[in-house]
């Protein structure tokens, strides 16, 4: 098991105020190469959970085990290893890339830090391979983040995350700012990562159809807890909680909308 999470809590603390529990106790497991989708409305705590899982924030309670080891009890070396194993990709890809570094320089630096044993030539070969994986043309290598489109930036940040050879990728709304055609390509990329490299994925998204397309399991988050979770097929085809039902009903689905229009226009027999 990669993750065994029991009743995990995450709080925002500000001086002079009681802590605000943004994640109030969630439990899940994630096996090697599995994909878990986390959906839910704005403010439900999805990003907060993602941040805690990538150690950008501490957990405030519960138990979070990675490969059987409690992460709060990690030694310094274990923490460093965890940071390599669990990579994060954000919605705002451009903001997470260094604006003063070309894509080549950013990838090269990541490789130098995480693979000091690689020489220059091997790094060059690896960069070409990563670009190909992420579906980017080599022309982007000498460009800077501001010169790339949103979709290209997003793939560059995937390429950088993959450079580290993680076992888990935590992606927070990686496609919500992108056009449908670019979104399709990123989702196909996510699916390939799992298939071809066996990387597990935790995908945070607003869009249920997106999650349904790539994830084995789904958790529906609402006010800091999982209202419902289970195999994607169960949650999407027969949601049990009212909240999951209302979320599904709010998805603007082309086919469903067209069918509803046709039904409304058909003469009632």
């Amino acid at each position: 098991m990669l993750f065994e999470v029991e009743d995990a809590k995450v709080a925002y603390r500000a001086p002079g105020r009681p802590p605000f529990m943004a994640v109030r106790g969630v439990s899940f497991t994630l096996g090697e190469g599995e994909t878990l989708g986390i959906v839910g409305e704005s403010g439900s705590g999805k990003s907060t959970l993602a941040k805690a899982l990538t150690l950008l924030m501490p957990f405030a309670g519960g138990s979070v085990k990675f490969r059987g080891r409690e992460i709060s009890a990690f030694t310094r070396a274990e923490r460093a290893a965890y940071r390599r194993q669990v990579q994060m990709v954000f919605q705002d890809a451009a903001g997470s890339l260094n604006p003063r570094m070309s894509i080549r320089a950013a990838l090269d630096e990541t490789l130098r830090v995480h693979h000091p044993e690689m020489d220059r030539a091997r790094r060059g070969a690896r960069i070409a391979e990563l670009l190909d994986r992420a579906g980017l043309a080599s022309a982007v290598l000498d460009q800077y983040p501001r010169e790339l489109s949103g979709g290209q930036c997003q793939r560059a940040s995937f390429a950088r995350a993959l450079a580290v050879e993680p076992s888990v990728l935590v992606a927070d709304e990686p496609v919500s700012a992108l056009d449908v055609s670019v979104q399709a390509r990123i989702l196909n990329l996510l699916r390939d990562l799992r298939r071809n490299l066996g990387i597990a994925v935790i995908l945070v998204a607003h869009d249920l159809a997106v999650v349904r397309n790539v994830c084995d399991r789904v958790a529906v988050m609402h006010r800091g807890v999982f209202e419902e979770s289970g195999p994607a097929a169960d949650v999407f085809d027969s949601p049990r909680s009212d909240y999951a039902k209302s979320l599904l009903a709010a998805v603007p689905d082309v086919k469903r909308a067209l069918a509803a229009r046709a039904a409304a226009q058909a003469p009632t027999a």
Partner: protein
Amino acid sequence: MEPLLEISSLRLSFETLGCVSEPVRDVSFSVPAHGRTALVGESGCGKSLTSLAVTRLPPTDRAAAGGEVRFSGRAARVSCRAGDAALAALRGRGVSYVFQNPSGALNPVMRIGRQIVEAMPPGVPRKEAAARAVSLLERTGLPDPARAARSYPCELSGGQCQRCALAMALAAEPDLLIADEPTTALDVTTQKTVLDLIDVLARETGMAVLLITHNLGLVAGRMDDVNVMYAGAIVESGPVEEVLSRPRHPYTRGLLDAVPALDAPRDAPLRDIPGTVPPPDRWPAGCAFHPRCARAQAVCSAGAPPPATPCGARRFSCFNPVPAEAADAV
């Protein structure tokens, strides 16, 4: 009946450092009074510039505009060349905008209530104005409208700010609301509330809506007519049912195929449109879509297809359209 807004052969070109680009090349469409019309396409296709040209918003000093804009609302009627100064008079008097990022529309150092009052048409008595601002906020579904009126934008969440921006747009009592990706930054639940609200208010006030979006699901569920834009031109247009259930232009087909559907087989790869929208100084010759088009033939790169061939109420511009019989097979 005369349409509320009619745009014909709109072009916009910019010259920067001796390099000319034409982000809008040939756009014609109309919005009927009380109608719900959508403009769709990937980012970089010129949708927003087109909508801004209605009130001459694009920076016109280094830009050249061509074509005509006609608007016949209750308080303002204009018929002139695109880019004409007369169009600016429509802003707030007939045409209101809501944008993706509400913070751009709201003044960060002024209370929400006061901003709404300032957007009202002249002649509203002062005393009445403040109460009307609160009632507008209330209609947007904000839980505590009086408190929102006293707030500054930074004290509200993104979804709440978008409701305030909407209240401000409605305060001007427009004939046409132009909503440019108004809900792209919001989650599906909030998105639904904001769009339901626009629907209800449009029905109540008779205001027409021009929705700019890349979300075809929203178009399918809420709009009457759709215009699909690619590389600065309208490539297909017509009633929503027809265009989205039986697209004839390969670009429309491609956009529809790329959307993950709720009933698609799970784990099936999505079909994407290869490549990306080129920058406006590099629109390809011939049919601008040809480098990305699976149906492209030699003729497609040689010359531009005839603009929007009429076919019933629907029009499309393509040498080798998706066959009519095959169009609805997904």
